[in-house]
């Protein structure tokens, strides 16, 4: 391989995009440190890499635990003889689906712990070595949903919007120290994401959204037909790792960029209307009486 071998750590590498990327980068000749919470899964990954004679180490890392992060930093220092990382891929993340106003405070915070606060904690932990060397790269796996919001995905989208902004600020602020910050924005990908998200929908059966939930699974299956293989994302991450100067954002698959163009062009009322159709958020689906104009209604009462 022509590109220089780099030391790359990936969080959330036990499944989906993270696992695929770990193997892909190792096959390209990088020294990969795959991390995650499930030791069993990490061992399986390690065995698979060993079978291919890849340079891949595994380290246990829970991004929501300060102790776990500190232990992992020490382990990485040892593995790399004090060099630290060339590239950090913040990939760990998940989504809980549901009507935004019905998701409890606890469920909402759980997503922020991993997707936002965890990402920042891991970044703070591995940054000092990069800054000492005046070289390094941070790759944050966001989502197409980091720049557009879907119904039922409000809380998940908000964590990814936050990651987009945090990455912008880090990109400005770390550049003088020779550290690049790039965002990967996957579209609909065939991973555990949907299964994880849909599994919790039953919890909202007793809310005013109950009647629309059944339809959601149908919609989810429809979306699955458009889903891409996670290898597409692994390749995008590899582009971001190998590029001499990383771009600010990598949309993958690339045609998903059309969504942003559409969003910019379509008037909000039409966009909203179609989003409500997608989410089955119509009076009919929700079993509501036809909407009465509230202002008119009050005016009649007042007169």
């Amino acid at each position, binding site marked *: 391989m022509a590109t220089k071998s780099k030391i790359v750590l990936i969080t959330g590498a036990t499944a989906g995009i993270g696992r695929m990327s770990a193997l892909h980068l190792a096959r390209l000749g990088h020294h990969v440190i795959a991390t995650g919470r499930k030791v069993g899964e990490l061992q399986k990954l390690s065995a698979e890499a060993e079978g291919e004679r890849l340079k891949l180490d595994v380290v246990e890392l829970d991004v929501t635990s300060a102790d776990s992060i500190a232990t992992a930093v020490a382990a990485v220092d040892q593995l790399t003889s004090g060099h630290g990382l060339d590239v950090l891929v913040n990939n760990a993340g998940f989504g809980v689906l549901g009507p935004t106003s019905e998701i409890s405070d606890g469920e909402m915070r759980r997503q922020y712990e991993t997707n936002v606060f965890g990402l920042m904690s891991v970044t703070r932990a591995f940054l000092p070595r990069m800054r000492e060397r005046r070289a390094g790269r941070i790759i944050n796996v966001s989502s197409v949903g980091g720049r557009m919001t879907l119904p039922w995905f409000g809380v998940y989208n908000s964590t990814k919007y936050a990651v987009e902004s945090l990455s912008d*600020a880090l990109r400005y602020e770390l550049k003088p120290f020779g550290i690049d910050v790039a965002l990967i924005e996957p579209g609909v990908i065939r991973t555990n994401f949907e299964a994880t998200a849909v599994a919790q929908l039953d919890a909202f059966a007793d809310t005013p959204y109950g009647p629309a939930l059944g339809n959601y699974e149908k919609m989810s299956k429809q979306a699955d037909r458009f889903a891409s293989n996670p290898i597409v994302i692994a390749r995008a991450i590899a582009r971001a790792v190998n590029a001499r100067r990383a771009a600010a954002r990598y949309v993958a698959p690339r045609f998903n960029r059309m969504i942003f163009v559409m969003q910019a062009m379509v008037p909000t009322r039409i966009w909203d209307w179609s989003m409500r159709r997608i989410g089955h958020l119509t009076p009919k689906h929700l079993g509501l009486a036809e909407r009465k104009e509230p202002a008119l209604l009050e005016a009649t009462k007042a007169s």
Partner: protein
Amino acid sequence: MSTPSIQKVVLITGSTAGIGRATALHLARLGNHVIATGRKLDLLEALRREALAEGPGRFDIALLDVTNPASIAHAAAEIETLTGGHGVDVLINNAGFGYAGPLAEQDDAAVRAQFETNVFGLMAVTRAFLPAMMRRRAGRIVNVSSIGGRVTFPFFGAYHGTKYAVEAMSDALRYELQPFGVDVVVIEPGPIKTNFGDTAMTKIGAFAGSPYAPAIAQADAIRQQFEKRAAPPEAVAKVIGRVLAQRRPSARYAAPFYNGAIFLLNRVTPTFVWDWAVRRLGRLTPEHLGVTAAPPAAPVPTPAPAQRATSTHAVN
């Protein structure tokens, strides 16, 4: 003056100062029943005196700390009584703040504190006052975000993170509450003359020993650059007043409106140019930071085709 719209019950969070206070007074003048809330009782009482001195309208105050579930529950019960079980017609989620500082140097607690008020607090208050609106199939939620909810500037990374989150959450709420007759609107103020700057600077001392020290030393100069363009909080209050009068409000209002130009500028400017410009603005250049440019031990990358291309250029 247009004819005052039908009197609405309006609850405003963070109304002891700045945009919240100006909005409370403005909406009361327009004939609404305002419930001004905040954490400081003496400031709320002063606000009520000022409002009542101006006219006979109904103006109530209630203690409300958006980060405290007990305080939210208590305020919700109080307002249930105040409105005779009606609840509020309009909820204005205005409470919010930001701490300035280089994001990677800001500690976990400082980042979280901003999300507590700006994101988790906003959602907790929304959940508390929404059920009455959904039952009546009528209501309006106005979330005070920022132009910084769609554009990021250096040294405010965490604050921008919270506001980007509010933008997404508001989008989803807008889709999901429309069938129940509840509108969701985002207000995006630009630089406004408020306490925002003072609060932002309270933790800046923590970075005096960081690699950003030379840029931090010029924080006041950077701040002045922004604040000389600042509008009075009444300008935002007027926009909110118009939003309340609208039968079908838009999804977003930049306030004052000309601040919307920054979104256009952001969209048409190539990222590398935009980044270069904001780094200059934040004094994030190697010269300002006293950073030695050359990376020490990094071996020269040797992709053969790229090198050929370079040498061809040199020959031409």
